[in-house]
């Protein structure tokens, strides 16, 4: 089966600019996650969707980050405006349902200048 697809692979922007990431989960997976992984740390959950509804966004900095999963398939994560501390790899993961292990995409490496 095809894996979780993410784009772009890399993005370099200046602080205060906007950026968006896209994720296409494995077909049929109901649950989708966005994680932020800062260098030297483990992934930190930003938001979890079950189909097109938000299950958990308690760690999403909502003043600058937003995410949506229209039609319960693809998802986008946006940062506006970006700060230096947002430099990280943004990982998308999906699972058939919430109690199954997640499959991760290769991530988008974001650098803020």
């Amino acid at each position, binding site marked *: 089966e095809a894996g979780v697809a993410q784009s772009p692979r890399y993005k370099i922007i200046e602080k205060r600019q906007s950026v968006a990431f896209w994720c296409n989960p494995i077909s049929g997976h109901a649950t989708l996650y966005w994680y932020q992984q800062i260098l*030297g740390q483990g992934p930190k959950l930003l938001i979890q969707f079950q189909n097109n509804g938000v299950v958990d966004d308690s760690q999403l900095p909502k003043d600058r980050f937003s995410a949506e999963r229209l039609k319960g398939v693809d998802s986008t994560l946006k940062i506006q405006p970006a700060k230096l501390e947002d430099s990280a790899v943004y990982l998308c993961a999906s699972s058939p349902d919430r109690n199954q292990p997640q499959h991760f995409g290769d991530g988008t490496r974001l650098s803020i200048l």
Partner: protein
Amino acid sequence: EDKVVQSPLSLVVHEGDTVTLNCSYEVTNFRSLLWYKQEKKAPTFLFMLTSSGIEKKSGRLSSILDKKELFSILNITATQTGDSAIYLCASSTSGTYKYIFGTGTRLKVLA
């Protein structure tokens, strides 16, 4: 606050050695513990553990969970250079199924 702590942070061994990686957790409404291997890109799933004392095994890798002492170990026997990676453990909670990851153990296997 829920947390997952891994040790050691890094480890260098020679091919053929056996290594044990540790993961302790303090999580409200614990449901399961998962191990992932992360090389340069996406973490790949290794094991999911929900019951105490039952070892899960895949080739040279094995893992076990102790729900009384709140920890898990990942063993790798006869290590190979291809085992070099960051090993992440994560806990999930009942209800929201929220996943909390540790910082990982960076393993380097020398030829």
